[in-house]
């Protein structure tokens, strides 16, 4: 019945057809424009990555090119009577030849010779000739960066902080989320509000006393201040996991309870296997946080042997500013693990952002 009514309200077929066609054209043009804008934006986003990668593969000489090309070009050199000279593609009477620049002369002129017949020379304006270049990569920058600063040590420290911390977060937050989702004591709901309100507490407010505490314990300049707190749960991840637990039907718990399972067993055998998506998301987010965090490592780690990648890279940059290529190589090393992980587990990342952003 509904369909009949709809039909009666529609305009005659031809008008409808024309209108539809113009709408379709409009949306096609709109979509093409949108795609162009989006693709341009994507290119802009990729440029810093390309810049970092290409700079990390350049020699110190290649760094001098202004503006820095995104491809690590190198001037092609040829041997002319025992000396290495830059090769140019020169135009003489409409004919193009490859010749070497052997001598600069006033007024931007240069003497070019044929590398195979050095006696044939011609004087031309240098700016009008095109230098011959080729791509030259210097992967040895990575080895040099590793030896200039103890990158392997920084990496090891970062891995320890990241993975031990991840274990801490997963164990503690899963337990706490279970406590807040499966028990009914009235004081629990009060505590949950307290937990939620700590999300917006800036960490600077507690930082100084915590620093003093760790100093009294003799933990400053060890990895412990970065690791130990993770075992005491954090509001944000507890909230995420709890929200997920709330969607798992209680019947499953009851069945396990009737079978004589303790709450610990119920959590481990019933809830955790079903909550893997949120657990993976929390693990990934903690990885990113711990891997990239600069603030706390800067405050708690003083001696070089304890630095994480973030602090090590910052110091490298501050002390060896001229060695841009080596700094970029170290930067690439730091960036690869999160980028790789992101590509492998994209779906979980984006889901996590969406869940915490839209529904949180």
């Amino acid at each position, binding site marked *: 019945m509904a369909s009949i009514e709809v039909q009666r309200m529609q305009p005659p077929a031809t008008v409808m057809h024309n209108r539809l066609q113009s709408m379709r054209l409009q*949306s096609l043009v709109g979509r093409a424009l*949108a795609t162009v*804008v*989006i693709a341009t*934006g*994507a290119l*802009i*986003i*990729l*440029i*810093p*990555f390309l810049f*970092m990668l290409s700079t990390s593969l350049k020699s110190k000489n290649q*760094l001098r090119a202004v*503006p*820095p090309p995104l491809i690590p070009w190198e001037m092609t050199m040829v041997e002319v009577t025992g000396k290495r000279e830059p090769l140019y593609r020169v135009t003489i009477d409409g004919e193009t030849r490859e010749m070497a620049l052997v001598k600069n002369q006033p007024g931007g002129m240069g003497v070019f010779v044929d590398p195979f017949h050095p006696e044939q020379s011609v004087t031309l304006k240098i700016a009008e000739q095109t230098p011959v270049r080729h791509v030259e990569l210097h992967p040895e920058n990575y080895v040099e960066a590793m030896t200039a600063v103890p990158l392997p040590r920084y990496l090891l420290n970062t891995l320890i902080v990241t993975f031990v911390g991840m274990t801490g977060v997963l164990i503690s937050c899963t*337990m*706490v989320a279970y406590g*807040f989702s499966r*028990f009914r004591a009235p004081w*629990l709901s009060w*505590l949950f509000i307290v*937990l939620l309100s*700590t999300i*917006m*507490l*800036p960490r*600077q*407010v*507690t930082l*100084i*006393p915590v620093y*003093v*505490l760790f100093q009294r314990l003799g933990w400053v300049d060890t990895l412990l201040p970065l690791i130990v*707190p993770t075992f*005491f*749960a954090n*509001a944000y991840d*507890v909230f995420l996991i709890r929200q997920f637990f709330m969607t798992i039907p209680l019947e499953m718990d009851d069945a396990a309870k009737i079978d004589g399972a303790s709450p610990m067993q119920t*959590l481990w055998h019933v809830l955790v296997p079903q909550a893997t998506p949120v657990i993976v998301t929390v693990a990934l987010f903690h990885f990113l946080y711990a891997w*990239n965090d*600069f*603030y706390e490592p*800067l*405050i708690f780690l003083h001696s070089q042997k304890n630095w994480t990648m*973030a602090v090590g*890279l*910052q110091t490298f*940059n501050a002390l060896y500013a001229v060695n*841009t290529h080596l700094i970029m190589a170290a*930067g690439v090393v*730091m*960036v690869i693990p*999160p980028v790789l992980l*992101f*590509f492998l587990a994209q779906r979980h990342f*984006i889901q996590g*952002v*969406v869940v915490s*952003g839209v529904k949180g």
Partner: protein
Amino acid sequence: MRLLRRSRLTLAQKEDLWALFFIAPWLIGFLVFTAGPMLVSFSFSLTRYNIVDAPIFIGLENYVRAFGRDPLFWHSLRVTLYYGALSLPLGLLVGFGLSLLLNQKIPFLSLWRTIYFLPSVIAGVAVAIVWSRIFSPQGGLLNPFLERTFGIKGPGWFTDPNWAIPGLVIMSLWGVGGGVIIYLAGLQGIPTSLYDAARVDGANALQRFRYITLPMMTPVLFYMLVLGLIGAFQYFTEVYVISGGSGGPQRATLFYNLYLYQNAFKFNEMGYASALAWVLFLIVLALTLLVFRSSALWVYYEGEVRKR
């Protein structure tokens, strides 16, 4: 009877004990790393304390100093607010705009989404270093590009006190993709039936945007605004890397959080830094409450009963 009651009581108690057991990690952490330190931090803020010697009680002196005698305190607030006033609206506009485009059923959606999210994955030191080189007036990437395509002679960016903050704002726009993902999810959550109904009623694209998309998206925009405000007051890593921890050039990037850090860990003024932390806390609290309060005026929640 008596036995039964006692066993029932212990059952409830047992449940409570289990609950306590499960939330214990957070509860202990809350007391040791949050509640305790908050109290201590407040009492530090009433002292002169250099971490080596015992704190000396000086009353509200630190607060008087901040508000009354410390031009750098006001300066760092101005820097932070200036950055926020530029980067928040721009970020919201660009991010939301991009997500509207991405929502046009354009090809390769998942590819674009991946690329736009990429910067959020590596936020931090490496990014700041790369951008400092891109902006560099010597051998950077941006100024030659501006010169060639627009004929503009680019400024000194992070070496020029007038251009350092705009530079940071441009840098922050590069990371706008994290928000794009959230907006996009919000857009895709709007029921298509609403648009269909509007079309039947003859609403054009602009009207559909104004009366459906925008109201449906205000909760998400609102959430991002609150996060962005809090974020500006916590901004640290990028400025630390770019200015080498100094807040230069000429203190142009002395953000509030950086100034707090300098007081605590460079000048060993733990008491004053604690006072600054409490001021920060109150500012964040006030801003959040302000945005929440004002949200009734402009944020639309589905299922909300409107009061007249």
